[in-house]
Every structure is written in C-alpha cells, then in structure tokens.
C-alpha cells in the first residue's frame, strides 16, 4: 500500500513545482494590477477623461479635449472594432478551410504562410504599413496617408494568423469519433463543421478571438508607425490620424512634465486595463452563453 520512496519524492516535487508556478504567476499579476490601482485609482474621474472640456461636447466631438484621455479611448475602440471586423471573419473562415477542406498541398503551403505571418513582429507590420503608404504615394495613390484605416488593416494582418491557427487547432484537436460521426449520419462536410465541429471547437475559437481582440487593443508598435499621434482628438474619417490609449501611455511614461501628468499616465493605464478587461469579460460571457446553447 506504500508507494516507493522514489515515486513519492517525484510526486512531491511535481506538486510543489506546479503550486509554485501558479502562485508566482498570480503574485506577479497582482503586483502589476495592485501597483496600478494604488497609483492610478485616485485620478479616476471626469477630469481624467475630458480635462477641462464639458463631457457632452467632448463626446459629440464638438470641442477638442486637452489633458484628457477621451480621444485616445475613442481611437482605441474604433481601432479594435475596425481591425476585428476585418480579421475575425477572414481568420476563422481561413482556419476552417485549412483544417477541413484544403488539399494536402494547399494546406502545407498556406499553413506555412500563416505561420510565417504569425512570426511577423508588430513593428515589422508597422514598417510594412508605413512603407506601403510611401510606395503608394509614389505610385497609384498620391494622397494616401497614414491613419486609422491603415493602422486597422495592419493590426488585422497582425492578428489574422492567430485566428487562423487557433481555429485550425481547435478543430484538429477534436476527438476523431466526432469527425466520423457526422459523415455517418449523412452530414455534408459543411454541415458537419457547422453543427458538430464548430460548436464543439467553439470554446477554443473564441479564446482565439479573445487573444486577437486583446492584441488589437494593446498593440503599440504598429500604430506607432501607422498613424497614432500624441494629440489628435476624435478622428472624423478613416484616413485621419488618431490617438490611442497604449500610445498615450507610452508617450506619457517618457514625457510627463509634472507629477500630475505622471498620475494621469497611471490613470490612463488603469483605464486601458479596465477596457481590455471589459472586452475580455464580454468575450468570456459570450463564450459561456454560446456553450450553454449548443449543449442544450
């Protein structure tokens, strides 16, 4: 009834290792969040968002906001929305195709392309976007400018491979009997995907979408080169330059002139954290309801 001493030690080591890893990670995250809360919570208030400007005028875009993060907040929201609109359908569709349809050859080529794209650092993607505009200006579109649309396209390209790969992996990870069963009941491949595989893989795919949205909201390197500026106010068209929360934080972290401005930076970071947290919470809730629906 007693295990060998050897085995007991390895078991104990494994247990301690796992616990330590978990506790360390949790402590690190809590430290980051706690520090932000401690430094930033005090600044939360209408002033942080709208500065001296009246909030209603600011929201309508009638009057610019100085010393407030409203424009950055709006810019980031637009950016996430636009880029997800572009990337999410394409990425999921591409992932499904690669996992369920494509020929071996196509799958290999496309899979490789997607992996490569996943490897493109965001700054290179920004560089690509920036150079693209320069090239376009010299050739077909002399009026092309960096701005919201360009940034959204680049960010969409950045998150696309994540979406493709998580979709593909989630589908590939399903047990083989699920894959056998649909066909044996006469489903077409698409029906099998739509009604059996996708619902089963839904969790995995949605967590891919979460990852993607998070990245879109937080990426700084791409927008650094494709249209984010330190002071811009609400964009009026897709081609306008814009402010974004992460860029504002990056900028203020280095450039704050007074202690008050530094506090503002902490407040901004806290807001960004809450924003991404909310996005994340929404996605999480969606995931839950979806799961309930397909299981019923």
């Amino acid at each position, binding site marked *: 009834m007693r295990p060998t001493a050897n085995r007991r030690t390895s078991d104990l080591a494994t247990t301690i290792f796992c616990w330590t890893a978990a506790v360390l990670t949790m402590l690190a995250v809590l430290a980051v969040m706690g520090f932000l809360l401690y430094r930033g919570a005090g600044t939360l208030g209408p002033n942080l968002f709208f500065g001296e400007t009246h909030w209603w005028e600011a929201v309508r875009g*009638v009057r610019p906001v100085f010393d407030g993060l409203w424009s950055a907040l709006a810019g980031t929201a637009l950016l996430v929305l636009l880029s997800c609109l572009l990337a999410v359908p394409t990425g999921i569709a591409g992932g499904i195709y690669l996992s369920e349809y494509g020929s071996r050859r196509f799958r290999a080529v496309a899979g490789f392309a997607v992996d490569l794209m996943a490897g493109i650092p965001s700054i290179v993607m920004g560089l690509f976007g920036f150079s693209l505009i320069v090239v376009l200006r010299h050739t077909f579109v002399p009026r092309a400018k960096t701005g919201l649309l360009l940034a959204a396209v680049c960010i969409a390209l950045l998150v696309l491979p994540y979406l493709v790969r998580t979709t593909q992996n989630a589908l590939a990870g399903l047990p083989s009997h699920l894959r056998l069963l649909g066909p044996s009941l006469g489903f077409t491949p698409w029906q099998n995907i739509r009604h059996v595989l996708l619902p089963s893989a839904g969790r995995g795919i949605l967590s891919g979408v979460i990852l993607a949205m998070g990245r879109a909201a937080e990426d700084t390197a791409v927008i650094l080169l494709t249209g984010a500026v330190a002071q811009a106010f609400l964009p009026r068209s897709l081609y306008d330059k814009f402010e974004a929360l992460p860029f504002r934080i990056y*900028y203020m972290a280095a450039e704050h002139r007074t202690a008050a401005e530094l506090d503002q930076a902490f407040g901004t970071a806290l807001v960004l954290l809450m924003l991404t947290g909310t996005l994340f919470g929404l996605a999480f809730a969606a995931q839950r309801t979806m799961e309930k629906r397909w299981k019923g």
Partner: protein
Amino acid sequence: GSLKSFADLQGTLDIAGGTAHIPVMNEAAKRIMTANPKIRITVTGGGTGIGVQKAGEGLVDIGNTGRALSAEEVARFGLRSFAFAVDGVAPVVHSDNPVAGLSVQQVRDIFAGRITHWQAVGGPDAAIHVYGREEASGTHEVFWKKLLNKETVVGSANIIQSNGAMKVAVSRDIYAIGYMSIGHIDDSVKPLAVDGVLPSQATAIDGTYPAVRQLYMNTKGDPKPLARAFIDYILSAEGAGIIRAAGYIPLQ
C-alpha cells in the same frame, strides 16, 4: 499673424518631428483649436529624423527639425524651412548630484566612455550612467558636433527617444548624465556648467555657450493655407510669447 486669421479656415493640420518643439506646438494648437473648433491639429514627436522624413514624403504638413536641413535633404524633398527659435543643448545630471560643472574634455571623456566613475570628476563613489539620444535626433547631432567634437558616444549608453524622456530618465537616476534641449530643463534635473559657462538661454544667445542651434518648421514646397497660417502664427508676437513661455528664445 494672430488667432483671427484662422477664423475662415478649417481642415486638418498634421505636425510631427523634433521633440524639442513639442511644448510650443501643443500650446499653439490648443489656442487655435479653442478659437476655431473646425480646425484639427494633430501633434506628435518622433524626433528630427521623423520630421524630415514625414514632411519630405508628404505624410504630415509640417515637419519639425532641431537642426538645419542638409543641402541634400532640401534638394531631394523640396523642403522649405522656417526657423522660429534659438535653443541650446546642455549636459544634465540628477539634481542631487554634487557635480556642478565639467570641462569640455571631461564631457568628451565621459561620453566617449573614457571616464566611467563619478569620483574621477569630483562626484560620488559610483559608476556613471550615460544616457544618449538616437542618431536621428537633432539634439544629438548638435551636441555631438559642437560639444563632443564628433566623437562617438559610448556604445553602452542607454538610448532615449525624446527630450522629454531624457529629462524623466535623468531625474529618476541619481548617477545619470545626459544631454537635452535647454528649453526642456526644469527643477528635476541640473544642467552642468561647461568650462565654467552655465548653459542657459542667455549664455546661448550671447554666444558664450557653444552648443547652440535653431529650431525649424519645414514644409514640402510652399505651405498650404492652413500650414501657412500656423507658421505665421508661430512667428507672430503672440507666437513669440508661447515660445518664450516654453523656455526658448524667439527669432524676431
């Protein structure tokens, strides 16, 4: 030349480039937009290199530089420059650092990595933390040409991306030394006297402090109406007030 000239204008004006200029640009933008909300002015930094490049490629309407354009840059992009202020570049240390001044040679030795300890220049018993700017910076170019005599900054120097950031970095590191636009200096950092001359706008303008430059706005070709109005405003009397308040000396 005054805010009234913006009354009939509308549209967007994009400004980028030199980081020394940012306080001036921001303040002017704020006043103009408050007077006429139909005008939108976007301001961002990036450094002198960005100013040349973006204005040159036509990606922004006004590109700022912290140095004069080279003949090649002017020829290639067809840029026009508008100088608006005089500024100096000064070595700075943490305000608690007991060292108050260095000789030019000491400055060169420190930035070249030949002097690595504060004690060698009469400071505390600690290693010197050198902070520098990226090569495309106008501030860097002026400091490198006029004080360092084109000697390369030591490779281990931490590279900082703007004047504002240099101030923050030096003010947070008690053993730091860096260099920045005089206009940006405030209580949080301490400028070092060089060969006995304390860098200030006064010593810069009277020629006793050597590392001096002008700040420019640049446009590709002749400025468009909104850019024209903006440049005129900066060069006006009201603009001079803004420039002075930001710590620079307006060019009349």
